[in-house]
């Protein structure tokens, strides 16, 4: 290798590196602006997680989860194990959930507290979709519920809101989704399953169903929604309970 080509190589390498760094910085700014960076993008698995989330957001924002014919509804769906109901839940169970409340607050013009009958009085839909667990198993069921966007519309969610944080009555279970999923037509606050009430084991009386993501985003026993433009102030700031337990915030894969 001659001196000339070596000099060229070093210069070329430096230019490439400079362009690369500038390019990455620009890509990062654009990605943040268009909401392509997940809240758990720090750490050693951040690059892969960011690529997955950004790629899926660019490709899948408007796509619908697969729906199935009635004949494919699982005869014997598997209710994943849940913690024993806490005392608060047992009181609701004893009163047939008449006092169950869903509080909607945060970046909304009209904070509301809705009963189950309030929610059921809203326009509702049904969908036959698959619950997919990160462990590998799955089942198909009919889910009947109020699309989340109906509830957000009632609470007059502000345009600055970028995420919806949702909490279970079991305080350790809380999750969040971006507005692409929150306003998605198949994201339901589910209260019925296979033509009946939603059973306890499957998240009754009220379960968030996010069929384009894995089952752990479909949190059971929902009591609280918060609209926000930043996830920094929730928990450890990683977006939800999952990353705090080592699992990815975005579960579309």
């Amino acid at each position: 290798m001659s001196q000339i080509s070596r000099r060229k190589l070093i210069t070329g390498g430096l230019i490439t590196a400079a362009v690369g760094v500038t390019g990455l910085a620009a890509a990062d700014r654009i990605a943040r602006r268009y909401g392509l960076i997940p809240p758990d993008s720090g750490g050693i698995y951040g690059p892969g997680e960011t690529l997955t989330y950004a790629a899926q957001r660019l490709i899948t924002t408007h796509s619908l989860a697969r729906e199935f014919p009635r004949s494919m509804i699982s005869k014997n769906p598997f209710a994943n194990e849940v913690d024993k109901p806490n005392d608060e839940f047992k009181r609701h169970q004893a009163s047939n959930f008449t006092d169950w409340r869903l509080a909607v607050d945060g970046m909304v013009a009209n904070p509301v507290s809705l009963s189950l009958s309030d929610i059921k009085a809203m326009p509702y839909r049904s969908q036959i979709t698959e619950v997919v667990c990160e462990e590998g198993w799955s089942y198909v069921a009919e889910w009947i519920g109020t699309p989340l966007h109906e509830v957000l519309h009632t609470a007059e969610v502000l345009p600055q809101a970028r995420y919806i944080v949702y909490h279970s009555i079991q305080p350790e279970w809380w999750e969040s989704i971006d507005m692409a999923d929150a306003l998605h037509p198949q994201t339901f606050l589910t209260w019925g399953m296979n033509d009946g009430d939603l059973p306890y084991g499957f998240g009754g009386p009220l379960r968030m169903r996010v069929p384009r993501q894995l089952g752990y985003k479909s949190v059971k026993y929902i009591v609280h929604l918060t609209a926000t433009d930043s996830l920094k102030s929730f928990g450890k700031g990683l977006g939800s309970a999952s990353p705090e337990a080592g699992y990815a915030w975005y579960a579309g894969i």
Partner: protein
Amino acid sequence: MPVVVSPVKTQTPRHAGFVRVTHWLTVVAFVALLITGGEIVISHPRFYWGETGNVNMSPLFTIPIPSSRDTVPTGYKYVMPDQNGWSRYLHFQAAWLLVFTGAVYLIAGFATSHFRKNLVPIHGERSLGAHWRRIAQYLRRSPPGSDEVRSYNVLQRTSYLTVIFILFPLVIWTGLALSPGFNAAFPFFVNVLGGRQSARTLHFFVSGALLLFLVVHIVMVAVSGFWTRTRPMIVGRAVSSEEEP
């Protein structure tokens, strides 16, 4: 630092630079995928066919190991520790590395006619008979001809082409078909496989085929001289007797 211009460097390397770099990046990605993939299987070591499958359904087959979930009936009283969180993070990060590495390799491979020159079996050897003859030569343990010092034999060529153009694309496809987000955008990719659980089972078997290749590959490299075969894949040059101290 003085620039040493050695005559050896002017020779065409045994393996091109892009082949060496992408080879070892693929090793890193594949080993990570293999370990984390195995770890994820432990959380549900049962496989099904069709769209759905869970512990309330009869499996196609079960791997007789303990599970990391107490909801899976394995016959063992022991429940393994849950490692799925980091395993899933690393699995997908390694998958991205594999995809980028594969893209660079394919582009460089086509641009330099690497596949046509080095991997497509040469004229006169594009037959089953030629493959059998080379297998027979292995079985007789007769040493390879001098032509194999600087080029691949027909069995290597066919195996490498199979891994590059069939097994890796299949494992990426069946893996993507497990993503609920990807399936929403491209339902064809999972539906044509017969459903989600079929895709999972196929992903497992294709990974098994790649693992089989890895084992045979390492054994063959070891048998034919581990360092004489591995060194050119690192530094590029084949070891010739003049270079030996």
